[in-house]
């Protein structure tokens, strides 16, 4: 048997100019927001000083930093509580959303039967359900966890269902032709096809789990040692400790930013080499 293979395609040469441009773009992608944020904080500091705004109305950023340092230990305990609540609820939302999403994608009757419940959970404001949950559940942490989970669960469920259904129909045919088992189909076709929608849902759910955690705590009005940042904010508001309120708020924001950065990084890691949404192009 002769094997006269055809001419090999030539590999594209490495473009050094393109690499330099990519490096510059990467640098600017974090430098620009840092400069803008720095300018905004600088203006805030100056404006508070220049207009003599009292600290019980708007404290200067420098005072917020001082408060953060002074109350650091107690605020960090609360921040850790909120972090735990957020990540537990997000983890549970991912597990529940993916499992139920997979069942929905595999069975239309199950989806038709259960989807209305998921929608009801989603459209009913968590502040309206939270008091009931707090009555029924003994542990405050568990009650708060359920509230935060309800908020974060739906995007994951809906993203997973849409993602699992969005596999290319020709690829589905190909898997049928090669007699793939249901497990092979799920692992090699449906799950990777669902990743773009899942990662988009994860970005939304990450933020929502934090919002859920904070809102639930506001509703619960929990007080004492074992409470999160939302309780610190309420407590400080009662005592008119505005710089402390801002300090807790800064920590909530930092946590939100960390979740966004983390989920964006995960999305880039998972989709960056193949999906349009995360591919960086030269223009």
């Amino acid at each position: 048997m002769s094997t006269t293979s055809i001419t090999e395609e030539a590999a594209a040469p490495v473009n050094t100019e393109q690499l330099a441009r990519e490096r510059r773009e990467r640098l600017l992608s974090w430098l620009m927001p840092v400069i803008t944020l720095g300018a905004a904080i600088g203006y805030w500091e100056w404006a508070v000083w220049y207009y003599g705004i009292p600290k019980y109305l708007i404290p200067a950023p420098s005072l917020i930093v001082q408060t953060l340092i002074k109350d650091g230990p107690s605020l960090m305990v609360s921040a850790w509580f909120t972090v735990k609540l957020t990540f537990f609820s997000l983890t549970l939302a991912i597990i529940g959303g993916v499992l139920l999403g997979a069942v929905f994608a595999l069975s239309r009757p199950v989806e038709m039967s259960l989807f209305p419940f998921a929608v009801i959970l989603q459209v009913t404001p968590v502040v309206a359900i939270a008091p009931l949950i707090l009555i029924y559940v003994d542990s405050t942490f568990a009650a708060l966890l359920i509230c935060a989970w309800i908020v974060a669960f739906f995007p994951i469920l809906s993203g997973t269902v849409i993602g699992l259904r969005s596999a290319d129909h020709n690829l589905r045919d190909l898997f049928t032709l090669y007699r793939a088992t249901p497990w092979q189909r799920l692992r090699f076709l449906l799950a990777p096809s669902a990743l773009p929608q899942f990662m988009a849902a994860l970005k939304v759910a990450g933020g929502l789990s934090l919002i859920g955690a904070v809102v639930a705590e506001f509703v619960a009005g929990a007080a004492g040692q074992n409470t999160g940042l939302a309780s610190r904010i309420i407590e400080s508001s009662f005592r008119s400790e505005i710089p402390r309120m801002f300090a807790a708020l800064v920590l909530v924001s930092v946590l939100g930013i960390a979740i966004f950065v983390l989920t964006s990084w995960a999305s880039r890691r998972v989709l960056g080499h193949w999906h349009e949404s995360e591919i960086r192009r030269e223009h």
Partner: protein
Amino acid sequence: MSGPIIQMDRVSRRFGKSVLAVENMSLAITEGEFVSFLGPSGCGKSTALKMIAGLLPVSAGTITITPPKGKSEQDLAFVFQEPTLMPWANVFENVYLPLRLAGVSRSEATPRVTAALTEVGLSRFAASYPRELSGGMKMRVSIARAMVTRPRIMLMDEPFAALDEMTRAKLNNDVVRLAKEYGLTVIFVTHSVFEAVYLSTRVIVMAARPGRVAADIAMETPWPRNEDWRVSPAFSTEARRVSETLKGTLHVDDIDH
């Protein structure tokens, strides 16, 4: 050449109540034949091909494929109109897929995947992702994936329709070379008379509404042909013959004004 490898006996396919995509199609294809299904859009070429592949059930009639003598991971391969590659997997993983689904280990599959990629001239691109390849290269990966299981039958559904003329001509030659080298039985769906005439040993002209076999034309020129034949008077004669038959099958409203 031996007996028929694919036998279609009064096969029909209906979509819903009103659309009869294929009606009473009977055909016997012998091992090693290169058959083209040629016809206008909507004549049931792709439907017929998908029924042969088992991807669409028949509404009536039977399709028989003679089972292979030896053991094979996959006897029948399909090349789609689009390259249909998994965008999240690199070229190696895409070509490895049929073997992976058949339970062949990576170490056992590697030389076979590499050989299939070498056959289509892409051995240096095993680590590349589909988005990094041109349309023609993607289609070659698709052909390598079809070839990796060493099938007897290759079904191709207008695989080069979206490619430029030069790439299409190049890939035409690749397919003919592979078919000849491995004794493949090929069914090639196309709406190009020139492509059908150049590639095939036999052209099945199909008519639309309902889709049916309008003519079964055996090519007179020995197969395979080379690039010189594309510009020869013999090619023009064969093309004219097929073209005339095709024209006779068209409805007035099939022709664009």
